[in-house]
């Protein structure tokens, strides 16, 4: 039997009510189908207003679909009895680190989730320590969150989610407000979670280079999935991505321009080394 996907989005549409009476509702998602399997790293890209955040909010029952069904671990988000199980199973990390921390001491903040789940104190202690260890913030457990950098705050937010022992984590632009160092820290943490802890990850971002190692990338535009594939398959379609207002990694852009001028460079190239190799090969062919 096929293993049940952790997340199933079945023919889901979502409409926000119109701003003024008499106007049509705003359709944020339009018949979207998506499955995420255990241990997968799925990236979601799309410009502002493409439906990315709507998608993420549907996954733990913050909003409910207008049409279709969202299932997490086989539980339907429309079933109110499952809401808390779903929220425990699908943790979310948001854009603004300052909006997610609630306590005045790091370890208390991480304990907030499991405390609300009614976990026994000795178990909470264990979970808090393990979670902080996983995100590399154990040293800071007695510190005050407001003194930490943006990247550190996001790692604390991630630890808080981990302490609830979720099956998957949805990251909704977790690096958008961070500086390059903070971005690196957070991306390293997310990748480690996926690779070492086999955490299922749904990562929503504007930054294409964060998705180079993803198993699969979904491109959203006007509420629909318009592209789906491996990073190489997606990034090599430079013209299509540019058309909908998205960036491609710089090396892929260089490769694209060279190809357009008739040079035999692989379209799916992502890294500096690959580009150097491709150019050396072309040169040696003469």
């Amino acid at each position: 039997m096929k293993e049940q996907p952790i997340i199933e989005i079945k023919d889901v549409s979502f409409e926000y009510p119109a701003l003024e009476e008499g106007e049509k509702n705003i359709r944020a998602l339009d018949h979207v189908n998506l499955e995420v399997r255990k241990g997968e790293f799925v990236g979601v890209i799309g410009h502002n207003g493409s439906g990315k955040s709507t998608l993420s909010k549907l996954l733990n029952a913050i909003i409910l679909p207008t049409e279709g069904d969202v299932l997490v671990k086989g539980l339907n988000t429309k079933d109110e009895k499952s809401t808390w199980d779903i929220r425990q199973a699908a943790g979310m990390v948001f854009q603004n680190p300052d909006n997610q921390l609630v306590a005045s001491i790091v370890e208390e903040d991480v304990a907030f989730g499991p405390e609300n789940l009614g976990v026994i104190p000795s178990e909470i202690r264990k979970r808090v320590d393990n979670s902080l260890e996983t995100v590399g913030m154990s040293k800071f457990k007695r510190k005050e969150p407001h003194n930490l950098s943006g990247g550190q705050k996001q790692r604390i937010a991630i630890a808080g989610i981990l302490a609830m022992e979720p099956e998957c984590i949805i990251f909704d632009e977790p690096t958008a407000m961070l500086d390059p160092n903070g971005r690196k820290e957070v991306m390293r943490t997310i990748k480690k979670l996926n690779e070492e802890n086999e955490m299922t990850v749904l990562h929503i971002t504007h930054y294409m280079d964060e998705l180079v190692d993803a198993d699969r990338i979904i491109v959203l535009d006007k509420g629909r999935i318009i592209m789906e594939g491996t990073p190489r398959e997606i990034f090599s379609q430079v013209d299509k991505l540019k058309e909908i207002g998205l960036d491609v990694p710089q090396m892929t852009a260089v490769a694209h321009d060279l190809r357009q001028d008739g040079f035999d460079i692989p379209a799916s190239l992502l890294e500096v080394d690959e580009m150097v190799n491709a150019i050396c090969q072309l040169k040696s062919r003469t």
Partner: protein
Amino acid sequence: MSIKIENLGQTYSKGTPFEYRALKNVNLEIEDGEFVGLIGHTGSGKSTLIQHLNGLLTPTEGTVYVDGQDIFQESKEDLVKLRMKIGLVFQYPEHQLFEETVAKDVAFGPKNLGLSPEEIDKRVKEAIKLVGLNYDEIKDKSPFELSGGQMRRVAIAGVLAMKPRVLVLDEPTAGLDPAGRDEILNQIKKLHEQEGITVILVSHSMEDVGRLVDRIIVMNDGEVAYFDKPKEVFKHVKELENMGLAAPRVSYLMKALKEHFPEVDDEIFMIDEAVAEIEKLLKSEKGEDAHV
């Protein structure tokens, strides 16, 4: 307007256990009409520096001259006048939108200057047009029903309506998608070219800054590490990395290529220039027809 920063220093919470030296001995001269990028990781002193430019912070050492005048020697009234000339756009400026309509929000600044209603009206129209929005379409809308990129442009219009001679923008593209980012940056570039405004752009993106500015200021640990043309700054890849920064990807590519092909120009950091240089390299020994 030219800006001269002389031996500027700022120590926060002086004389307490929390004393922190955010700026040390900063010396910079920015010319009238120049487009300058300001880069440095979080905590390097970027924001502290720009808050001195219109007197939001008073230096603990040194001073700032605007058009030759020491702005911290001036009387209070003169300082107020000066602030109108130096427009500061903070991070996430759309959080500062508050009026019912876009037109009212942009008018807030000029209204406080005590200008006549006609002049205010004129400035609001101009400012909205300058940020690339359609005045008639947008004037009566609530700022809160606009997209993120539009809200940010309305907020910038509010500063432009003050008719500043220097525009300082603190990470104006943070949190925007690539299309929104390009929109804002292209508008700023146009403003700089058309109106001749001096622009100081704080950014985390070497790619963006390298493409746009005349010179880059790199701040590190409260000090100016570099103040030079982009291609000169990007030569210091190792040093930039040690400061938690990086050169554009293209710089890395050109440097790696130079190791194999010494004739490559490794000062290139923009995609189109790199493509041209690589094509030159590929064609050089092969002859014109071999590559297709």
